């Protein structure tokens, strides 16, 4: 099993423990609060993904064959999901990131949050992560 798949399986297991939405949301809030901060100098207009509802900053660095993503959001729930995506896709090889399937999002019941109509910037964030991966892979 690739590491990306393994991490996803762990996240699905974590979310499996929750009985109701409140626990799930509280967990997302915790993840958001715990997300390693992005360096202030990377919170630039260039790195900003403007959703209609919340904003996301994403920075990527290519070192030793892996991509390190750091990110932030002004909304904590969005930031919690950002943290999950970073957990899954950061510190991985470009090729693995580019080809990663993110089906686990459905399994943990956050599909709505990643629908383009939500306008919270998350869909564009995933797209941007993949584009970085493709660019760094070449």
């Amino acid at each position, binding site marked *: 099993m690739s590491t990306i798949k393994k991490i996803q399986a762990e996240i699905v297991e974590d979310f499996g423990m929750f009985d109701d*939405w*409140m626990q799930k*949301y509280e967990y997302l809030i915790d993840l958001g609060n715990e997300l390693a901060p992005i360096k202030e100098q990377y919170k630039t207009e260039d790195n900003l993904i403007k959703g*209609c*509802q919340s904003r996301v900053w994403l920075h990527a660095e290519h070192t030793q064959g892996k991509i390190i993503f750091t990110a932030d959001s*002004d*909304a*904590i*729930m969005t930031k919690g999901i950002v943290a999950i995506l970073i957990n899954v896709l950061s510190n991985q090889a470009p090729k693995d990131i580019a080809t990663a399937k993110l089906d686990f999002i459905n399994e943990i019941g956050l599909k709505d949050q990643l629908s383009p109509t939500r306008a919270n910037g998350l869909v564009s964030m995933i797209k941007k992560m993949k584009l970085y991966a493709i660019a760094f892979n070449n």
Partner: protein
Amino acid sequence: MLDISKIRKQFPILSTKVNGENLVYFDNGATTQKPQSVITAESNYYQNENSNVHRGVHFLSGLATDKFEETRITIQNFIGAKHSHEIIFTKGTTDSINIVASGYRTLLNKGDEIIISELEHHSNIVPWQMCCEQSGATLKVIPLLDNGSLDMIAFENFLSENTKLVSVSHISNTLGTINPIEKIIEKAQAVGAKVMIDGAQAAAHISLNMQSLGADFYCFSAHKLYGPTGVGILYGKEDVLNELPPYQGGGEMIKEVSFKKTTYACLPHKFEAGTPNIAGVVAFKSAIDFITELGLSNIAKYEEELLQYATEEVLKIEGLKIYGTAKNKSGIISFNINELHPYDIGMIVDKMGIAIRTGHHCTQPIMERFNIPGTARISLAVYNTKEEIDICINALKKAKMMLS
């Protein structure tokens, strides 16, 4: 006194469960729910009356045309217009404003000025920017005071013989401010300008009389008045509409067509090219009937009571700040709690069955003015209750606890 529980029973959607909880619908500024009479009228139209309007000699076409025109008369009476041909059916407020703004592209020249305000919905900003771009006219923006009301001194200072058009909303969809449109109309017309009022947030809450108000244009959307989507009204004074160039060309809007010259039909058809949303227009009458049966003044009184109660109660939440505290306000409360992001609040109360709106509400300049990313917004309608406000307050407290 209105019997609210009886009113609620007329709205099938209000018994929806969300996440196991009773739906509390506080997003009426975006669109109101529809009573059964409107839903029935729309489907009855397709079942029994469907045909195209104004163009056939056959029985059904006559019936559809009669129904369609009945709504026009109903709207004329509802807003106190002098003539029924001053009522143009459109797709909605946005469409109505675009019709006027696009006509003004050819009526205006360099040096002319259009005045709007800082609290406008994007629908009452962008069409005028486009109009200015193409005509060379200049756009002036009335600034907001801290309480969310218009700086009327700045407005009066803007006025000159160059002012050709003033377009402001009757009620702000974000701040709830009821603008002093009577005064705006009087001052603007005194310098020879025409005035357009965006009544999207007003028509379901304030009694209107176009003849005493004297606005040159007034517009609103049926879907914010318990009516169907895709239908709107553009009211214009007869002579002003006659001077306005048509917006779209096509069937129905012409008198004679030849390749040498086409002449336009009279009002209102000049602005109603193509087959309209007939079913929606027909059903809109039922929505107006619903409102007039309750009485707009009764509705306004009840909503005022709800607004007062809701305002008092939300302010009990520590750290909650209301944006829009003008003296004259409609049933809209925009707020933030401490530094919490409105999106987070909206997501959490949604799980408790509460529909509030979060974001910039298509009024980004207001967000910039107050330097905030957005607000959470409660907007009220006649079927809302104090109990629902209590439920919402509890949910907001819970959200605050989870997020703090």
